[in-house]
């Protein structure tokens, strides 16, 4: 498959282009889901009268009422578990855990119930549940509010992990996730909500199986997802100036990984850099490096490079936070290092 065909696979909309934001695209997806299926409801802290912690669900309470846009107390384990049970009982819950930081409080329910029930029950209990949460750093929120733990979740069999990095995916991933028979965790990066752009008016469901080549290139493959995609694309532009043509792969789905697209690109470019906002050791980037060397070892002209967050609880001070996070310059430098 060519790069073009691969990225096309994520979209089929043909309507006129309209201006929108990542936040509005997410909201439209929620609205559509609530409208089209009575079994769908949204539940979480402050999704209702507050309008959503990041204003994603603003107005939905008024439109759909408090049963279907359901505010919860601060009880992450209980309301995530409630989503699992309601899914089993025939509903299609969308549970919002405000941010990934608080999802640790619901981890047992996610790992030991949502992800395990189908298998543990010998196939009797699928859990058609969607869990949304915000992830990432970059807004000086310090150690407890800046985690990027989606890589942890991508370790767990039984769940699917997706991370929209574009408006199209923000608009389209929810519908596909809701039609999935199994639990899907959807990670929205906190720095993307205000991202502006255009989207087809009839944009809708996108596939969740394929990574997308967001920019074709021949000399190096840059692999990123979610909040890191934009700066990776920027780095690719900067590399052009250095005479290095970078292909950019957006993972989109973190579990299961689309090895074919990742490895296919590296087979062409012979060099790769993985960009991951997680702490370097044990981040998802390691898994990608491992797979590339397993599947394309003899195609590699240089070790795969990683650009990750420094291994430090995220500091508040702006200069420290900036130094801790992957930046355009560090991505460019890593790409250049692969040239030797």
């Amino acid at each position, binding site marked *: 498959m060519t790069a073009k065909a691969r990225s096309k696979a994520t979209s089929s909309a043909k309507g006129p282009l309209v201006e929108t934001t990542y936040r509005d695209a997410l909201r439209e997806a929620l609205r559509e889901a609530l409208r089209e299926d009575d079994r769908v*409801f949204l539940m979480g802290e402050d999704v209702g009268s507050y309008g959503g912690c990041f204003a994603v669900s603003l107005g939905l309470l008024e439109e759909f009422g408090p*049963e279907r846009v359901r505010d*919860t*107390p601060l*009880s992450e*384990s*209980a*309301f*995530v*578990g*409630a*989503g*699992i*049970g*309601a*899914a*089993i*009982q*025939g*509903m299609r*819950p969308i549970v919002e855990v405000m941010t990934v930081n608080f999802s640790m409080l619901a981890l*047992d*329910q996610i790992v*030991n*119930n949502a992800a395990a*029930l*189908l*298998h*543990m*029950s*010998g*196939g*009797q*209990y*699928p859990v058609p549940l969607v869990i949304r949460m915000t992830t990432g750093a970059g807004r000086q929120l310090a150690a407890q509010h800046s985690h990027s733990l989606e890589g942890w979740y991508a370790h767990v*069999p*039984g769940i*699917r992990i997706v991370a929209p990095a574009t408006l199209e995916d923000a608009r389209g991933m929810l519908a596909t996730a809701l039609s*999935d*028979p*199994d639990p899907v965790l959807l990670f929205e990066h906190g720095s993307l909500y205000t991202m502006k752009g255009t989207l087809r008016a009839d944009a809708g469901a996108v596939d*969740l*199986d394929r990574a997308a080549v967001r920019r074709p290139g021949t000399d190096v493959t840059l692999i990123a997802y979610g909040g890191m995609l934009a700066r990776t694309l920027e780095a690719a532009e900067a590399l052009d100036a250095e005479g290095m043509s970078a292909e950019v792969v957006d993972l989109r789905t973190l*579990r*299961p*990984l689309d090895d074919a697209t990742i490895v296919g690109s590296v087979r062409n470019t012979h060099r790769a850099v993985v960009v991951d906002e997680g702490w370097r050791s044990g981040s998802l980037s390691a898994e990608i490096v491992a797979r590339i060397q397993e599947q394309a070892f003899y195609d590699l002209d240089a070790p795969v490079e990683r650009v990750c967050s420094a291994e430090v609880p995220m500091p508040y001070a702006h200069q420290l936070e900036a130094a801790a996070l992957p930046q355009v310059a560090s991505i460019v430098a890593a790409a250049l290092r692969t040239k030797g």
Partner: protein
Amino acid sequence: MTAEPLDLLRTMLLIRRFEERCAELYSGGQIRGFLHLYVGEEAVAAGVCAELTEDDSVVSTYREHGHALARGVPLESLMAEMFGKVTGCSRGRGGSMHLFDRSRRFVGGNAVVGGGLPLALGLALGDRMQGTPAVTACFFGDGAMAEGEFHEVLNLAVLWRLPLLLCCENNLYAMGTSIAKEHGSTELALRAASYGATAWPVDGMDAVAVNRAAARAVDEVRGGAGPVFLELRTYRFRAHSMYDPDRYRAKDEIADWRDRDPIELLAARLRADGSLTDADLAEIDAEVVARVTAAVEAAAAGEEEPVEELTRFVYSDTSTAARSVR
């Protein structure tokens, strides 16, 4: 509505004989992993489950054979599961701690203490949102009540007036830890009441008393009054699990409780009022033992899941993600 005492007796005997056999099979190595017996607590499962309809759901713990049997899960499929056979109720993937039966709305077996509570809350929520009159019964122990999940779940159930029947099996111990070392205030029903739930303690060794309490509780819950919390005061006659040398309980204490064996208690009462003869009891017992024996034979003869099927059910067969684990 309440159940016929004789039916309660039959259920309790079935549980007792089933588990006695499990203990033997564990020693023989046919059953493995962890095995937690319910011996002594049978009145609770029998009394509560008799009040549930087929639309109601049940969530249990790792000490779950009694709940599963009282719920009507076929003992053949339960025993086969203990053997790890594909004929088991969870296709051999669950074992003793993860019995499931969708057709009886028996939603497991949860081996994380307190882990079933949020799930049960959600089942109740799902029922309520779909306007069915179903009730979810969730069993858990005195130890589980110390977990944060209990607090979150009871609060939410009251807040949303969900049809949840919380059955706290207070057997005075969480593994080796006595209730006095688990809870600052050991009047569990009183504490549950402080959340705004109806709550009361029940003699959990008396199957008829449990059944009457359950009847009233299910009625309230089904009527839309919100959750009810029953503190079922009971005792396990055997150790926590097959690994437990039971060092922490006084012999006298165990003996005192054994004097109130729920099966003997009910049998004695039925004998006293003339509704049960020794011959009747022997007949029921023989019938139960025969069923257990047949189940063991069937389980032993059952097939094993081929290892090629290992990763099946990680994702649904219809999911494209299923390909990733093949």
